[in-house]
C-alpha cells in the first residue's frame, strides 16, 4: 500500500476552493503542481526581510540574500546527490536548461556529421532545441523509436543499440514521458550512451518532484527540471551538469555577474556556477524552491513515488471499462508514473476537459507539447489526468464518474 498523504492536503491553500460550485479536484499536475504554504511563506519572508541583490553586496541584507540564494543551490545539489553546489545552475525551468546545453554545448562541440540522439517521446522542449542545434552544426538528429502501437512498451531498447553509433555525441531523453507516463530506465540509457562516448541530457521535468533522483547513481552528464512541477514557484528551475563540463562550457547568456574581467574589447569568465547565471538571478524563487525541496524530502520521496504509482494503477483500473475509452502508454501491471492519458471515441479532448471542469475536475487535453508523438499514435489529442501527493483514490472515483457522464453526453 502507498503512504497516505491526505493530511498534506491541508498544506496547499489552492486546493481548498470550489470551481463551478464543486470542490476542486486538481488533476493537471504534470502541467504544474500547487504550492504548499511553506513555499508561499518562503517567498513572503524573503521579500519582507532579506530582499536584496546577491553577490558583490557587502551590506547586511545583501549578505543575507546571497547566503539564502547559495543555500538554495547547495540544497538543490543535495536533492540530486550532486558532488558539488557549483554543478547547479539556476534557470527559469526545464526549457531554459535544455536550451543552455543545446545552444552552448552544441555550438562549442558539435561538428558536421555528428549525431544527436533523442527519443520519439520527447516534449517539444527537449526536441526543438536539438533540431535547431543540429541544423546549425550540420549534424543529424535521430530518434529512438517507441515500441508498441500505443507505446505500451516504452522505448525500443534494441533499436537504441543500433542507433548508438560512435557518431552520437549527445543523447537527450526524458526520464518520464509527460504524455505516456512511461518511466524510462535512465541509468541504463546513460550507461549505454557512455559506452560510445556520448554525453547524456536527462529531462527530469516529470520526475524531479515525483521520484528519488541521484545524478551520480544515474550517471548522467546533464539533467534539467522545473520548480513549478514539484511544489515550487514558477520562474525557477535547475540545470545540473558535471563540474568539468560546466567549467569548460562557454557562457550562453552573458552580462553582469558572469565575468572575471571586462574591457571594451572583450571579457573573461568566472568559473561555474557564476559563468552560467548572467544578470540578477531569480533570487526569491530559488529560495522558495529550497523550501519545496525540504517539503518533499520531509514527506519522503520514495513514498511520494509509491503514492504516484498506486494512483496511476487505480486510475488505469477505474477507467479501463468505460466504453469507448482508450488508455495510452504502459499496460496495466507495468510501471507507470502518476499520469494517465486517454482518448474517448465520441468526445474530443477539449470537450472532455470543458465538461469535467463543470464537475470541478481539472484535466488537460491536447497534444501535451508532443505533436510528433501524437501523430505517430494516430491521435489528434488526448485527455490527461496527472496526480500529485495530495490526490486521493476519491479523486479518481470522481474522475471515472465524470467520464462516464461525458461519454453519455457526447455519445448518446
Amino acid at each position: 500500500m502507498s503512504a497516505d498523504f491526505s493530511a498534506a492536503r491541508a498544506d496547499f491553500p489552492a486546493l481548498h476552493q470550489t470551481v463551478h460550485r464543486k470542490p476542486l479536484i486538481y488533476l493537471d499536475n504534470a502541467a504544474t503542481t500547487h504550492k504548499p504554504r511553506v513555499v508561499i511563506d518562503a517567498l513572503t519572508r524573503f521579500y519582507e526581510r532579506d530582499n536584496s541583490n546577491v553577490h558583490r553586496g557587502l551590506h547586511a541584507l545583501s549578505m543575507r540574500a546571497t547566503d539564502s540564494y547559495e543555500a538554495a543551490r547547495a540544497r538543490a545539489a543535495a536533492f540530486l546527490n550532486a558532488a558539488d553546489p557549483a554543478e547547479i545552475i539556476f534557470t527559469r525551468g526545464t526549457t531554459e536548461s535544455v536550451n543552455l546545453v543545446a545552444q552552448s554545448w552544441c555550438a562549442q562541440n558539435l561538428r558536421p556529421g555528428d549525431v544527436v540522439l533523442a527519443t520519439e517521446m520527447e516534449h517539444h522542449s527537449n526536441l526543438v532545441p536539438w533540431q535547431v542545434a543540429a541544423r546549425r552544426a550540420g549534424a543529424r538528429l535521430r530518434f529512438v523509436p517507441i515500441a508498441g502501437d500505443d507505446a505500451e512498451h516504452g522505448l525500443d531498447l534494441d533499436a537504441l543499440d543500433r542507433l548508438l553509433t560512435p557518431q552520437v555525441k549527445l543523447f537527450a531523453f526524458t526520464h518520464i514521458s509527460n504524455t505516456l507516463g512511461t518511466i524510462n530506465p535512465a541509468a541504463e540509457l546513460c550507461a549505454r550512451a557512455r559506452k560510445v562516448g556520448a554525453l547524456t541530457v536527462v529531462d527530469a521535468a516529470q520526475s524531479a518532484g515525483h521520484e528519488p533522483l541521484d545524478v551520480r547513481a544515474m550517471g548522467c552528464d546533464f539533467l534539467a527540471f522545473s520548480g513549478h512541477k514539484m511544489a515550487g514557484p514558477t520562474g525557477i528551475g535547475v540545470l545540473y551538469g558535471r563540474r568539468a563540463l560546466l567549467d569548460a562550457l562557454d557562457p550562453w547568456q552573458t552580462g553582469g555577474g558572469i565575468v572575471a574581467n571586462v574591457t571594451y574589447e572583450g571579457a573573461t569568465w568566472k568559473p561555474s556556477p557564476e559563468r552560467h547565471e548572467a544578470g540578477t538571478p531569480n533570487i526569491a524563487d530559488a529560495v522558495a524552491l529550497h523550501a519545496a525541496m525540504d517539503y518533499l524530502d520531509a514527506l519522503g520521496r520514495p513514498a511520494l513515488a509509491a503514492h504516484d504509482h498506486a494512483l496511476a494503477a487505480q486510475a488505469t483500473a477505474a477507467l479501463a471499462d468505460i466504453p469507448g475509452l482508450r488508455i495510452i502508454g504502459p499496460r496495466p501491471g507495468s510501471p507507470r508514473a502518476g499520469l494517465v492519458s486517454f482518448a474517448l471515441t465520441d468526445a474530443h479532448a477539449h470537450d472532455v476537459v470543458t465538461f469535467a471542469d463543470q464537475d470541478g475536475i481539472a484535466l488537460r487535453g491536447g497534444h501535451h507539447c508532443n505533436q510528433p508523438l501524437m501523430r505517430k499514435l494516430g491521435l489528434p489529442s488526448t485527455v490527461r489526468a496527472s496526480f500529485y501527493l495530495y490526490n486521493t483514490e476519491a479523486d479518481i472515483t470522481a474522475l471515472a464518474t465524470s467520464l462516464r457522464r461525458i461519454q453519455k453526453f457526447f455519445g448518446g
Partner: protein
Amino acid sequence: MSDFDDLYRDVILDHAKRPRNRGRPPTANRAATGDNPTCGDNCTVHLRLGDDGRVAAIGFEGSGCAISQASASIMTTQAKGKSPAELEAAFGHLKDILASGKTPADFDELSAFAGVHAFPARVKCATLPWHTALEALKQPDQPAQMVEGQKS
C-alpha cells in the same frame, strides 16, 4: 444557464452529433484545408462556386471538438446560395457574437455560439471552418472530380 450549458447549446450538440453536409459534394471544384495545431482540429471544405457567383454546393471533412464540428456543419448550411461577400459578412456576424458573447435577437443558428465567448481558448474552434471556407473560395477552379454518376 451555466457557462457550460451555454457553450453546448442544443443547436450545437445537434449539429456536432449529426453534422450536415459532411463529405465532398460531387460537383465541388474548390477546396481548402485548415488546422488548429494547438488542439488538433482540422477541417477541409469542398465547394462549388456557381456561374452566378454563389456557392452552389458545399461540404466538409475533418475532425475536431464539438464546437468546431458544429460550426462546420452550421457554416455549410448557411453558405449555400451565398456570394463570397455574403459569406464574409456572415462570418463577421459570427465574430461579433464570439467577441461580445451577446445573442442578437434577430439572428439564426449562429447565435448559438454566443456561449463560446466565455471560453477564449475555444474561439478558434468556432472560426476554423469559416476561415477554411473563405480560403477555399479564393482558390482557382479545379475540374470537378469525375465520379461514376456524372459521366454522361
